């Protein structure tokens, strides 16, 4: 049956290894979207038409969840480095030369360079060249270098995007803000903001969940794969999209966009890591099924059974054979490898390895 209602998502929410749904085709032009991208919550311009970059942002101007932290410098370093992090505490830690434990964050916030989304990380780092730090004063042969024009002053106002995932009641909200940050003052200013809502499509193991939202043209579907928090591990995930490309994230979510034109389809295989309860047969000696020992190479005999980490994969697909009136959307899960006790030698996060 060909549904004329515009963009009605018929997703079934199922706890299990597989779920499918069909999405109605796009309705007539001008029809109001349902369950699609909501309008920006801000009156500011969208990312594609940003106002000009400001030359300076005062320290008193600040966007929630965006903190500029000057990093400790080595003497005579060629560049000064700044980190963009999510909390004031993190900024203080960075400034003091420490490392941020992103697994301690209560919110899934990530940063990316530029205004376009993709490739977000829990924090980003920017290097600003130190004028004259790497200049050579002499040339081979002893002749003095000709005088150079002074370099332009470094651009201290940089543009980033901040992505925050909020999950509640079978829905996920992806809030994306484009922000200018002035590295010299620490001030920040919102350039644009928009929110995308997703509905839960399928529960994977232990909070490895998949949400989706149809795209406006009716051919595509956006998936949001949310990975559960891990103790002492980055919530990395990697997606092989179709056979074209690989997407990766070090954050707790990964957004994948798939399209299915008539007699076509796309797939993505998203691999992440979930935590599992201790193996009931784990005697606490630290020797797992694979014979591995604890991370420092020593035996941990007598310790309590350890939770396990195991890579899991979500297989996302949108397809439409010629006789389908609507694209068929399906999500299934599978294990992507064996489990490992937390702290064992073998890194459980294959996704991280892939990113590296």
């Amino acid at each position, binding site marked *: 049956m060909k549904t004329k209602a515009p963009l009605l998502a018929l997703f079934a929410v199922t706890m299990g290894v597989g779920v499918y749904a069909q999405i109605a085709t796009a309705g007539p032009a001008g029809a109001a979207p349902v369950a699609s991208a909501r309008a920006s919550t801000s009156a500011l311009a969208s990312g594609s038409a940003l106002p000009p970059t400001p030359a300076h942002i005062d320290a008193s101007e600040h966007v929630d969840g965006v903190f500029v932290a000057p990093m400790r410098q080595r003497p005579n370093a060629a560049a000064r480095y700044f980190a963009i992090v999510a909390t004031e505490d993190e900024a203080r830690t960075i400034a003091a030369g420490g490392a941020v434990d992103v697994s301690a964050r209560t919110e899934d916030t990530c940063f990316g360079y530029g205004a376009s989304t993709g490739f977000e990380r829990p924090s980003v780092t920017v290097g600003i060249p130190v004028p004259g730090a790497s200049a050579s004063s002499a040339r081979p042969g002893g002749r003095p270098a000709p005088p150079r024009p002074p370099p332009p002053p470094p651009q201290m106002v940089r543009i980033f995007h901040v992505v925050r995932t909020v999950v509640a009641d079978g829905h996920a909200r992806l809030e994306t803000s484009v922000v200018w940050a002035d590295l010299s003052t620490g001030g920040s200013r919102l350039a644009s903001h928009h929110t995308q809502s997703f509905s839960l499509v399928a529960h994977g193991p232990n909070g490895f969940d998949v949400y989706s939202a149809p795209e406006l043209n009716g051919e595509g579907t956006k998936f949001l794969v949310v990975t559960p928090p891990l103790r002492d591990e980055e919530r990395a995930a990697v997606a092989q999209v179709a056979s074209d490309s690989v997407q990766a994230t070090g954050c707790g979510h990964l957004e994948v966009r798939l399209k299915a034109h008539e007699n076509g389809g796309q797939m993505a295989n998203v691999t992440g890591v979930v935590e*599992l309860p201790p193996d009931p047969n784990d005697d606490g000696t630290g020797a797992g099924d694979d014979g591995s020992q604890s991370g420092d190479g020593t035996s941990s005999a007598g310790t309590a059974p350890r939770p396990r980490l195991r890579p899991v994969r979500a297989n996302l*697909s949108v397809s439409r054979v010629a006789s389908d009136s609507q694209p068929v959307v399906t999500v299934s899960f*599978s294990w992507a*490898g064996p*489990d490992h006790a937390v702290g064992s030698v073998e890194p459980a996060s294959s996704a991280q390895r892939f990113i590296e």
Partner: protein
Amino acid sequence: VRDPAKTPKPLAHGQGSTVALAQLGTKTLAYVADEDDQAVHVIDVDGGEVASFPLGARPGQLVFDESGRLLVAVRDASRLSVLEPTETGALEERCSVATDAEPIGLAVSPDGSRVLVATGWGRSLTAFDLRSPTFATQLQLTLPREPRSVLVSDDGTKAFVSHAVGGQVSIVDLDAKHVGAVQLHALSVDDERAARQVQQLHVMPGHHRPSPFLLQGPRHGGQGFTLAKIAQPTARVFVPQALVDTGDPRERPPGYGSSEVDQTEQADVAVLDGKSGELLPESLQPLDDSVRRAMDSDTEHHHDECLLPRGSAYEDASHTLYVACFGIDAVLALDALATSPIRAERRRWSVAGGPSGVAVDAAGKRLVVWSQFERTLSRIALGGPDLVDEKTQPPPPIATVALAPPAHPLTVEVALGRALFHSVGDGRISHDGRACASCHPDGRDDGLTWATPVGPRRSIMLAGRVERTAPFSWSGSEHTLHDHVIITFNRLKGDGQLRGLELDALLDYVGSIPTPPRSPHDESDTRVARGREIFNSKSVGCAGCHTGDYFTDDERHDVSTKDDADTSGMFNTPTLRFVGGTGPYFHDGRYDSLRALLSDGTRKMGDTSQLSTDDLEALEAYLRSI
């Protein structure tokens, strides 16, 4: 008169397999086609063997019709046996019907009015009227090489036929009696697109990588032994297969196939529209193994792909496609609704060796798998839909029913050799997972021309062609089969550790692979007799080199067929046994058909230029009969 209330009730009818289920009271009975015992066994899935019906020849598939009769393709006897279960579940034969040579695939039309029989060696699709007392022939059509499975679209208008070689599915319009085909080859990607991807690599190091899959050459489909379909929520036909990169035949790589890729064969499930038959092109893009390796932390997961799919079944409740795989002896559970189901593997189970058929017991929430090599029935509880952590929620063990040894069992050596021949991922044989059966399905040939260190080479049919045909290989450079196999393993980059008793066992099996049955019509065909005369005539000159019972003089000749990539123009005279079913022809596959070969006017290898069309047809008919 049979009382339907007291006899087994089929749990499904329509799709042929080597295992079919029926309910008899509280018992679930499995009817299995046992090649080794040349019989159909009746097995209580929760108990043991109930009865056995000897066929006297190897069976192919079996299927229930809507009236509860069990139709069995008796492969080696070229007949369709019609059996009827009794009140105990045992079978009685009602009649049998002659078919073309080597019936294998069976399907009953949705309205129950006819059974379609796909013959392997006979290359035909025949429809028999199930409501006629004589099983009158309604339809007979010629198909491409090596049909294996057949299914009928839900509206009854189309038949889909898979082929063990050739990388295609025949789509037969049953009303118009027309045979079409869908090619299942994965195309190469144009240079521009590849270049774009390489550019991306530099733009986003560490994040965007070109998939090696896209940088490879075209891949040929093959191993189409089984078919499955779904009707709801979308009409699709599934063709489990392997995609093969044979390399560029203009080059001389160090082994068989491209030296640029480390994964010569990839498992795949092609998806067709169940109504129109159109291919979903993206289903021919399996996840590249190198990407999978990078994404998986399971480093032992290599070379466990389903390169030899042999059975399949679909389960409505979870939209799962189950594929039984030789070589890895496993059943895969795939998301049937995925664009590329092979990329959406939910889980897999190890089963007894040689799983040739799988059936779903929906009410019992279990799979029933028939493993031919170990003659074992496996019962797998499907459990719930959740992805289970086996350590905290151990699944019930797989229950098995092993049959008693047959009256005339295979020798231990042949049984071992068969397992080795089909072994996927055996590093002693190949470095990339290929099995002997990858290029020699059913001991025949894959119909492909491979790039090799000595030039382009067509795979050679083994069944019935290795005894008394020395020397071996197209070049005729090996005087024993043993030496030839060792060289083959070297070219496949096997580690050379398969030797001694195991290598002997492999050779024993190769020498015992069942040959295709002869067409029952050949002996009485006057054209065959005329063709024999022509073949032996001095003016045509075929028998000058293709002489004796094995149609070879065991010599090497230069017949001016040297290809640019060939290291030599001297070629071993190949035996012509079973030549009719082994095209394309010549060492480089330059002729698509026997007729094309016979019509060539080069006169370098016999002279057929003076033959009339009738005589050419007669010569071709004779060649097809030998």
